């Protein structure tokens, strides 16, 4: 059923004769159900012709014998086959049409002056197939997708002009047309293309999908169409730091909302003129949202940094905790890059024993995302087999929220440490026993000198909950501590030039130093 009614005739005729395509005509006539838009372009043009010529004999003035329908249809078909040539030869076909009949003149197969081809060739199966070919070639694994499309800002200007034109025409019939009565270009575009994508790729479209297919259109020919807006509404177009052009869609929309009708009409033709070429496809990109993998790691090396240690392009120490774990994940998930974070961290020369430290890795733009728990187990085994410096456990896929929860724990936890202490004075067993009895000792730590170059200078109060000692010899003993999270243990032992008070040295009234440290 053709969606337009008698009421729409004048507007449809006007728009068609000024170079607007059938689907845009539908939009301006408020056709808000999907079915009509999905019909093939040929058919729509045909139906529109038929609709317009019924009871409109008065339109055909100059021609005594309007060309028979059959010929017209033939011309139409010729014209439609030529759509693909439009980009090279936009106006080419017009002369073929112009054999006197105004009705045939109206079967304008030029580039639509409102959508610049978006609702002509760019929403049809052939184009969608091209996009899907690219999607399949990109090698992503996905079970649904979200489709995002970006149009050149000039389209908003043309839409605005067409609206003013149609509003005026409808005013003659005492009808009003609000901005919201018109169906949005993007909406109509998605109505048509979503089912085509689903069919071609075999997956549903889901707004929440992590897999995004994005298409960006541009129209270099009319790039300057927006420029007049800057003269009239300069404050809408403030240059932002990262943007190449100041004429963003948002800025253009803002200006269009502000500008007065008279001012607009002075600067921009209503109806908009017909362009020579359709839009160009600037970009077809696919990207998958990040996935997260979490677990716990143990560190058995006293020579392994958390992150790669590179100074002036030179690697100072081989490998790092994050690389030993993430490199395998990067490969298996076929991701572009990773972000490693952990609940706290330890120094290069400190071992992580016990249950291990929680960590989470964000895998950016992964091409493979579905793994069975068996596969994850095997991945964990692979990581553990490849290095004896670290071991991983509880490897699992998690959500983004998991990272927040992991970081929360950082501040609240109590940490257990094991240290080997050296003293300058000779000690006996009894000299260290008093340390066992100290409970909840408050210490003040100024930012240690060894991190002062990259941390603010401050004093941190921390609590040493309890300690246990084990005598080794006259100058050594083991110290086990349970402390508040965020305590600098090394500085608590040697005092950091007296900037951590009290410290083991001050408590024992001698000079103490730390030879080894392990964290549980």
């Amino acid at each position, binding site marked *: 059923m053709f969606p337009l009614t008698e009421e729409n005739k004048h507007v449809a005729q006007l728009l068609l004769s000024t170079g607007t395509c059938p689907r845009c005509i539908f939009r301006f006539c408020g056709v808000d159900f999907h079915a009509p838009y999905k019909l093939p372009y040929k058919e729509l043009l045909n139906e529109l012709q038929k609709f317009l010529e019924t009871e409109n004999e008065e339109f055909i003035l100059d021609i005594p014998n309007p060309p028979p329908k059959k010929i017209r249809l033939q011309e139409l078909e010729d014209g439609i086959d030529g759509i693909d040539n439009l980009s090279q030869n936009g106006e080419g076909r017009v002369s073929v049409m112009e054999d006197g009949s105004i009705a045939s003149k109206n079967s304008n197969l030029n580039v639509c002056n409102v959508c610049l081809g978006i609702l002509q060739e760019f929403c049809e199966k052939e184009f969608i197939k091209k996009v899907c070919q690219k999607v399949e070639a990109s090698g992503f694994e996905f079970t649904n997708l979200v489709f995002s499309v970006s149009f050149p800002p000039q389209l908003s200007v043309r839409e605005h002009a067409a609206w003013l034109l149609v509003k005026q025409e409808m005013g003659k019939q005492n009808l009003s047309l609000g901005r919201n009565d018109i169906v949005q270009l993007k909406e109509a575009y998605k109505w048509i293309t979503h089912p085509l994508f689903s069919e071609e790729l075999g997956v549903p479209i889901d707004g929440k999908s992590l897999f995004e297919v994005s298409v960006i259109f541009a129209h270099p020919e009319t790039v300057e169409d927006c420029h007049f807006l800057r003269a009239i509404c300069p404050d809408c177009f403030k240059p932002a730091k990262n943007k190449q052009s100041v004429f963003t869609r948002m800025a253009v929309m803002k200006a269009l909302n502000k500008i007065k009708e008279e001012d607009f009409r002075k600067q921009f033709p209503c109806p908009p003129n017909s362009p020579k070429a359709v839009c160009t496809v600037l970009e077809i990109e696919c990207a998958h949202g990040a996935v997260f993998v979490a677990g716990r790691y143990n560190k058995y090396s006293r020579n392994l940094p958390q992150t790669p240690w590179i100074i002036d392009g030179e690697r100072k120490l081989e490998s790092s905790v994050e690389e030993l774990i993430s490199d395998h994940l990067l490969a298996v998930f076929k991701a572009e890059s990773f972000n490693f974070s952990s609940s706290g961290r330890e120094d290069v020369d400190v071992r992580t024993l016990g249950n291990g430290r929680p960590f989470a890795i964000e895998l950016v733009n992964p091409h493979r995302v579905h793994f069975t728990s068996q596969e994850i187990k095997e991945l964990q085994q692979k990581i553990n087999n490849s290095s004896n410096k670290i071991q991983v456990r509880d490897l699992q896929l998690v959500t983004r929220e998991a990272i927040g929860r992991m970081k929360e724990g950082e501040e609240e936890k109590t940490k257990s440490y094991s240290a080997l202490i050296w003293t300058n004075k000779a000690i006996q067993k009894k000299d260290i026993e008093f340390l066992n009895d100290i409970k909840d000792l408050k210490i003040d730590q100024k930012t240690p000198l060894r991190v*002062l170059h990259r941390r603010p*200078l401050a004093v941190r109060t921390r609590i040493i909950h309890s300690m246990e000692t084990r005598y080794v010899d006259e100058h050594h003993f083991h110290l086990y501590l349970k402390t508040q999270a965020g305590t600098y243990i090394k500085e608590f032992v040697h*005092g950091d030039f007296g900037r951590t008070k009290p410290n083991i040295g001050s408590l024992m009234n001698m000079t103490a130093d730390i030879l080894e440290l392990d964290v549980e």
Partner: protein
Amino acid sequence: MATEPEAPEPAVPSLVDRYFTRWYKADVKGKPCEDHCILQHSNRICVITLAESHPVLQSGKTIKSISYQISTNCSRLQNKVSGKCKRGAQFLTELAPLCKIYCSDGEEYTISSCVRGRLMEVNENILHEPSILQEKPSTEGYIAVVLPKFEESRSITDGLLTQKQYEEVVVKRIHATTAAS
């Protein structure tokens, strides 16, 4: 001489040995024997301390008081540093005075920065207990902490002596005094 922790097993490097490089400036501001020792951390932070040969550290000297008020308008105690970039820090040149040490024998010594950079902090512990300065001049008795500009972190030691060069200067002095006496 100060009583520095003597490692009974010389094999155990001290905290300073492990993380710092010792640089020296002798006869600072032309004053004989007023030697300073700058401990430069591998992260470029400098700790200003007195060298063993400094008069204040010689036996028999008693410190009456220490003051960070180096002029009517400037007290190093007022130094306030905020943020990672250490904004608000007093900027020091090589000859900038850090503090004044008053001894019971009437002698007065000015300690200089010897290094260009932002003043992080001065040691308030020695204000309350000046003896720490003499007992542990290389650790608890430090004078100040200075953060040089990143671009200058290598060049600041251009005008300073290495440990070896300093030791040669001290040896020369001893010979000079022996020769004189």
